[in-house]
């Protein structure tokens, strides 16, 4: 049988899912950010390890060592890791789904201080202090 999906992009953007929808969107963006970073990082390490007269590895390094990129990638990594643990726990123990809203609040209470500390360290380093 199967469900039919027929939702346009505009309708999708207009959907007001509130808190849970926000974590869903950020989880996707974070996951894609991590894929991009890890792929760049593996390629950069590989190119620099095998010094085939290539400076491409060093060039890729300068992209992700840039502090503005780091602000983005740390958001992706910490949010994906913390939100991911919530998803795993709620999916593997479905009875807990009843407490999803509380779990999301708890998640933000963990994420904000952790990311705040990371931001502080990145920005202090980025400003050369």
């Amino acid at each position, binding site marked *: 049988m*199967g*469900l*039919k*999906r*027929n*939702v*346009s*992009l*505009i309708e999708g953007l207009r959907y007001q899912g509130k808190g849970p929808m926000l974590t869903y969107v950020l989880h*996707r963006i974070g*996951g*894609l950010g*991590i*894929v991009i970073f*890890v*792929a760049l990082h*593996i*390629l950069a*390490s*590989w190119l620099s*390890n*095998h010094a085939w007269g290539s400076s491409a590895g060093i060039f890729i390094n300068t992209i992700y060592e840039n502090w503005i990129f780091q602000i983005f990638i740390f958001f992706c*990594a910490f949010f994906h890791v913390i939100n*991911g*643990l919530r*998803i*795993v726990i709620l*999916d*593997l123990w479905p009875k807990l789904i009843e407490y999803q809203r509380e779990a999301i609040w708890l998640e933000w209470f963990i994420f904000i201080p952790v990311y705040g500390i990371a931001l502080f*360290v990145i920005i202090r380093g980025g400003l050369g202090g």
Partner: protein
Amino acid sequence: MKTKPRMAPQRGFNFDYLMWLFTRLSALAMYLIAIIGITAALLMSARQNMTVADLMRWAFMPNPNHVVNTNVTNIDAWKTIFWQLMGILMLFFAGGHGLHGLASVLEDYISHTWIRNSLRILILLVWVAMSLIGIAVIVTS
């Protein structure tokens, strides 16, 4: 922009279900590998010789290249077969988790079956290639 309707994935024991389960279990496995890495690093003098940022880099990927820029002077204990194995496991779980995630995000926005199928093959090839490159980096560093 109206996209064409398409069949949602079927319920039951199939590839999509297995990958759904793999995504959850690999997340737990990556947590476990990171916890093992952090615990072992703290036992191997990280408390004196590493910053939190260094420790995090080691937790995400236990590779000796993440130790050479710290105050750790002797990296022999950080450069063993055990850590190479942990690195390869991390790469396997992260690669499968990440590229399957990429595929499911892209497939949500693509309605043509043939594009989705070719994307799956392309992403499978990227996964194989990136795994081989990653293993090469791990065993040579």
